[in-house]
């Protein structure tokens, strides 16, 4: 309208977005685009893999570039449709989000390569690769969005893609596992939506930076404890924290092994990320109030996971419980809330993404070589392939938290942060868990690898595409175990950015609020 006098610059972005800032939305946008193309090419089964692997390699590059951009310039924000926050949906990439997104992309790339040999014709026909790309769209979006309702939408994107992946094959076991996985995860995301509805009712905004500002200003008069507690329950359920963890051991051993590997690497960590984002950045004071509850839940999660790992004979179920015990360590870090604790939680989550994916891949190779996942029947793998056994042993040590691998440093960080406030029992739980998981995984090695084979193993060849991702992920855990300094300083900066979100807020509201 010609006569329009209003100053639109209060609500709309009037300048073009700098080219480098487009990187913020590219990871999810690229995944959706690639997923859509793969969906259209669903009949060309051979083409799919050769498109999906480069697409995910590009995703790794995009996340890597974004990390470089954020390291150089601090948090970066891009708004959708030129609507300025808090009106429009903002994507804000800060260090914590980008680190998670990059680790997720690496894991997904490794999974796609592993799937070249592991996912056969029928599972490809059911759309493994499109689902994988859409899963990554949800995961990347969840890590990079700066809007709570948008976070919910990405959760649902990754959830529906994961439903597609978990039912690939449609065996009765898978259907059974999928039922439990689907119902409980849907209830958890609905709880998340309930909380988000209340959050909107209280603040009148859904932008995280805006919420952080308004929560800090109106802490005394707003019912924030309710929100923090509900978020803890909803995201704790997504992260498989005790006592809402029972969907994980019921379902993670049923799908194709590469699907289980991707789930173990990605899904529970999205829950941990959301817990960090809400409880550390938005509601730090309320988290302080809840810290004893979170510490108790974390301790129980660690112990339950370790005992479950000791009590199961299917190695895939053992690994499912190892995932849970790792979640306990991250919750312990979250409960402390200090920079060391939060940094330890972030580090452990990144470590767990890489190592748990690799461990499931190793379990897949065990099943392929020995034809079984049952510790009562396995044996003789060391004689079959010494190289694979060595790779597995490193991963077992890394998952147990033994030095010099990447699981050691985050446990030290969490333990030190706990000692600083005199929470000796939390330290004891962390070390007891490490001890028990070492026994559980050491027993897997002793029985499945060292024990002579009950019957001679068939001479199955190990395809390079199965060994390569395993070796790369193992190399990552060794590298970050031996040379943790660079990653440590980045993670400390990420934890700092969550605890003190002024840079994040400044990036969303450049002109001040």
């Amino acid at each position, binding site marked *: 309208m010609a006569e329009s006098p209003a100053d639109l610059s209060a609500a709309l972005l009037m300048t073009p977005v700098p080219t480098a800032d487009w990187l913020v939305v590219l990871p999810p946008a690229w995944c959706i685009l690639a997923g859509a193309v793969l969906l259209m090419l669903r009949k060309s089964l051979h083409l799919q893999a050769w498109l999906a692997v480069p697409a995910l390699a590009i995703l790794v590059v995009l996340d890597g570039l974004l990390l470089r951009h954020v390291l150089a310039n601090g948090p970066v924000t891009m708004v959708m449709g030129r609507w300025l926050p808090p009106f429009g949906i903002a994507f804000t990439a800060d260090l914590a989000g980008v680190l998670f997104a990059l680790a997720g992309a690496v894991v997904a790339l490794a999974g796609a390569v592993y799937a070249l040999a592991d996912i056969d014709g029928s599972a490809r026909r059911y759309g493994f690769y499109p689902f994988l790309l859409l899963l990554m769209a949800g995961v990347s979006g969840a890590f990079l969005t700066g809007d709570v309702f948008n976070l919910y939408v990405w959760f649902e994107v990754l959830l529906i893609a994961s439903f597609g992946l978990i039912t690939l094959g449609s065996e009765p076991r898978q259907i059974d596992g999928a039922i439990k996985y689907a119902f409980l995860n849907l*209830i958890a995301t609905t709880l998340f939506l309930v909380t988000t509805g209340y959050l909107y009712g209280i603040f009148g905004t859904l932008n995280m930076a805006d919420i952080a500002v308004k929560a800090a200003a109106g802490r005394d008069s707003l019912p924030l404890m309710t929100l923090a507690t509900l978020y803890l329950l909803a995201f704790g359920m997504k992260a498989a924290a005790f006592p809402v963890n029972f969907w994980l051991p019921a379902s993670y051993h049923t799908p194709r092994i590469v699907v289980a590997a991707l789930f173990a690497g990605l899904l529970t960590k999205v829950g941990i990320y959301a817990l960090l984002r809400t409880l550390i950045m938005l509601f730090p004071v309320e988290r302080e109030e809840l810290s004893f509850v979170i510490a108790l839940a974390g301790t129980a999660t660690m112990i339950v996971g370790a005992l479950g790992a000791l009590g199961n004979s299917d190695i895939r179920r053992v690994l499912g419980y190892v995932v849970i015990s790792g979640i306990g360590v991250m919750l312990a870090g979250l409960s402390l809330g200090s920079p060391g604790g939060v940094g330890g939680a972030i580090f452990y989550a990144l470590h767990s993404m890489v190592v748990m994916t690799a461990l499931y891949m190793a379990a897949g190779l065990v099943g392929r070589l020995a034809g079984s996942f049952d510790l009562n029947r396995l044996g003789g793998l060391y004689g079959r392939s010494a190289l694979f056994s060595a790779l597995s042993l490193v991963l077992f040590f890394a998952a147990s938290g033994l030095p010099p691998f990447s699981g050691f440093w985050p446990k030290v960080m969490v333990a030190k942060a706990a000692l600083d406030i005199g929470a000796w029992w939390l330290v004891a739980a962390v070390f007891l868990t490490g001890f028990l998981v070492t026994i559980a995984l050491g027993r897997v090695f002793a029985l499945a690898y060292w024990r002579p084979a009950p019957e001679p193993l068939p001479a199955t060849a190990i395809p390079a595409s199965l060994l390569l991702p395993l070796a790369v992920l193992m190399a990552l855990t060794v590298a970050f175990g031996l040379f943790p300094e660079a990653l440590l300083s980045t993670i400390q900066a990420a934890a700092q950015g969550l605890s003190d979100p002024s840079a994040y807020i400044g990036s969303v509201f450049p002109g001040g609020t």
Partner: protein
Amino acid sequence: MMEFPFALLVGLFFAAAVYLMLSKFLVRVLLGVVLLGNGVNLLIFTNGRILREVPPIIPHGHDVPVALTANPLPQALILTAIVISFSFFAFLLVLVYRAYQDLGTDNGNEMRASEPENDPLPPTGY
């Protein structure tokens, strides 16, 4: 003060949903999930505050609404949530039917295909 009866209604939805989800039978659990989803939609609607019969339309020649209008944002949120919860309902319906076909039961207590009751313990020695 239209919010109060709506809040009661949301509570009723949630209570019915929780009651249904506590059932052993998957179809009832599924209905509980659907009720929960609808309860949440109503909750978001109520949280946006209820103002009647004033559509959020800006008159010609103005840049901002002239009077207090209904809040359009909760409706956008609910629309998103409806689409999502409906698609999940459709998926779960198929999954439950498939489970009934393959596992021969819709009783959650009898679904032990992925976690058999007599799973052997790991060996204690070589």
